[in-house]
């Protein structure tokens, strides 16, 4: 903002990215310090925690050397950060395998889960949002009340409700857990991912639905829609050609924020269904006190979260003509 002369020549979009990406990187750097410090204060010595009762003085010393536990904290931090940046976050304390190779498939699984969820949930939410905005009355009231109720329920409780309804007590249509052997693709057993996807879809549905509905209602009450109506344009055409494209700008931002919100929900939901993703991996790693794995997964989740948030702001800027042309920052 201060060096206007240098940045004035840039388009608002690139200016936003130029300020937000360094800020995002700073946030991640700060996050890495927090994660590292937090895992440092774990009670007891990490080497002793790992080896447990089988520890001998020699094996303790060897592991301490491997983990750089004898160097000062700042050196440990820098060595660890270098490892993270070069995609070599060390080896798991539990099975001795490189963290990257055991977590990478989980990241892929989680990403697939989140993207499938987002695609299904967002399209359904937009359709229902349009229906609710056009059919004010009992249809709108029912949809809005359901969305409000669903948004209140914690994701893991929603997951348990799905299991009770569709996998165990009421109907037994689907598997309650998506146990997959390591290395087996999640696509090999499609039925295993139906319930996790359905649960997460319900978790994010209310936000996109509400935004579509509010935004479309607002656009439908504007003068140019009134004008089109007076000219005798059909309702279908008004909604799909005139109103919806203008109503979708705030919705696009909510969709990106929804993906960020999924990062929080995905941990509990993966755990409920035993889905082999990052969230389940994080819970396992915490239970096993597997510090390098914890650090890596938390940072991976944070990176995704920060990236999606920047994307949300960028989309909002690009889809809002007023902000795009005057070059004002999306506050």
């Amino acid at each position, binding site marked *: 903002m201060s060096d206007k002369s240098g940045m004035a020549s840039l388009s608002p979009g690139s200016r936003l990215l130029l300020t937000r990406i360094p800020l995002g990187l700073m*946030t991640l750097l*700060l996050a890495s310090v927090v994660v590292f410090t937090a895992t440092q*204060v774990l009670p007891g010595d990490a080497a002793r925690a790992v080896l447990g009762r089988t520890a001998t003085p020699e094996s303790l010393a060897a592991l301490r050397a491997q983990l750089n536990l004898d160097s000062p904290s700042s050196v440990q931090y820098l060595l660890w950060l270098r490892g993270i940046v070069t995609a070599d976050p060390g080896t798991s304390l539990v099975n001795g395998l490189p963290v990257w190779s055991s977590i990478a498939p989980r990241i892929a699984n989680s990403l697939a889960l989140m993207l499938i969820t987002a695609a299904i949930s967002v399209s359904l939410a937009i359709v229902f949002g349009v229906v609710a905005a056009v059919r004010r009355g009992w249809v709108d009231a029912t949809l809005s009340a359901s969305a409000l*109720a669903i948004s*209140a329920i914690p994701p893991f409780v929603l997951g*348990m409700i799905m299991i009770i309804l569709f996998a165990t007590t009421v109907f037994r249509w689907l598997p309650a857990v998506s146990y997959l052997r390591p290395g087996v693709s999640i696509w090999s057993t499609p039925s295993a991912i139906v319930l996790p996807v359905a649960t997460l879809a319900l978790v994010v549905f209310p936000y996109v639905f509400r935004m579509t509905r509010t935004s479309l209602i607002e656009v439908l009450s504007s003068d140019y829609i009134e004008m089109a109506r007076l000219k005798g344009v059909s309702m279908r055409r008004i909604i799909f050609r005139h109103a919806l494209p203008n109503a979708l700008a705030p919705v696009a931002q909510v969709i990106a924020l929804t993906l960020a919100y999924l990062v929080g929900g995905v941990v*509990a939901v993966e755990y409920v269904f035993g889905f082999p993703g990052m969230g389940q991996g994080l*819970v396992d790693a*915490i239970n096993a006190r597997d510090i390098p794995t914890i650090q890596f997964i938390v940072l991976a989740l944070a990176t995704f979260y920060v990236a999606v948030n920047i994307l949300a702001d960028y989309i909002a800027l690009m889809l809002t003509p007023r902000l795009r042309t005057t070059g004002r920052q999306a506050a």
Partner: protein
Amino acid sequence: MSSDTVVTGSGEAKRTGLLTRLGAKGVVGLFCCLSVTAFAVLAPWVIPGSPLDFVAAPFMSPGPGLPLGGDALGRDALVRVAHGGYQILALSFCAAVIGVLSGALIGISAAYARGLLDNVLMRGLDVVLAFPQTILALLFVSILGPRWWIIMGIVAVIHVPEVARVVRAASLRIVGEEFVQFAEMAGTSTPRIIIREILPNLLNVVAVEFGLRLTYSIAIISVLSFLGFGQQPPIPDWGLMINENRIGLTVNPWPVLVPVMLIAILTIGINLVADALLQRSPIEKE
């Protein structure tokens, strides 16, 4: 006699006033959360038996004397449900109160001070917001240990940035009002202006935030228990019970079903009340 009727009369008037303000949805919500709260608080005293006694076979079906059957270890599921709610409620309530109050004070201070303090506070909170908050809670609670005050403190801290942002936006209108300037001229101290002059004008905003934060507190605290980082066995706790008993869902669903329904009804109820307050509040109209 006459004073008696006056008291009941004004009491009635106040109650109907609140109920009409809430509307039908809000009243349903209020009923939901009050009944779950009443159950969580009263059931430990009303329902006899110890939540730690083994009285049945594991996952025994409901029968005489065991309305919900046995849990994973053969304890009375109903007694455990009865004893498993008040910690979640008390912790969530305290976390929401602390988080909303500190967030509100920070928000008002930032709006009132403007300038450097405003910038520093709000940018600092942006950094906290830029981090996935459930993950933050999970990380710290798993590391610092599942002690109740740690859980409460972390959940409270998580609420602060968002509450501060909302309250700051709402108080920007108020800090410029005449009565604030009068108080300044009268030499009122800054903390007094913030608490006695500005805060009372934001009660509606704070109430809505409190409702939302309470739902969120319950969600985080119960999921921490569910994942095994909250209350530790053998303490009865709704979140923990859901996890302990879910392997036996096909044999005896009740020890899972009842806590699931209680948490769902409670959070839906609070959300309905918060939504009703939001629709009646002036910020909605802007």
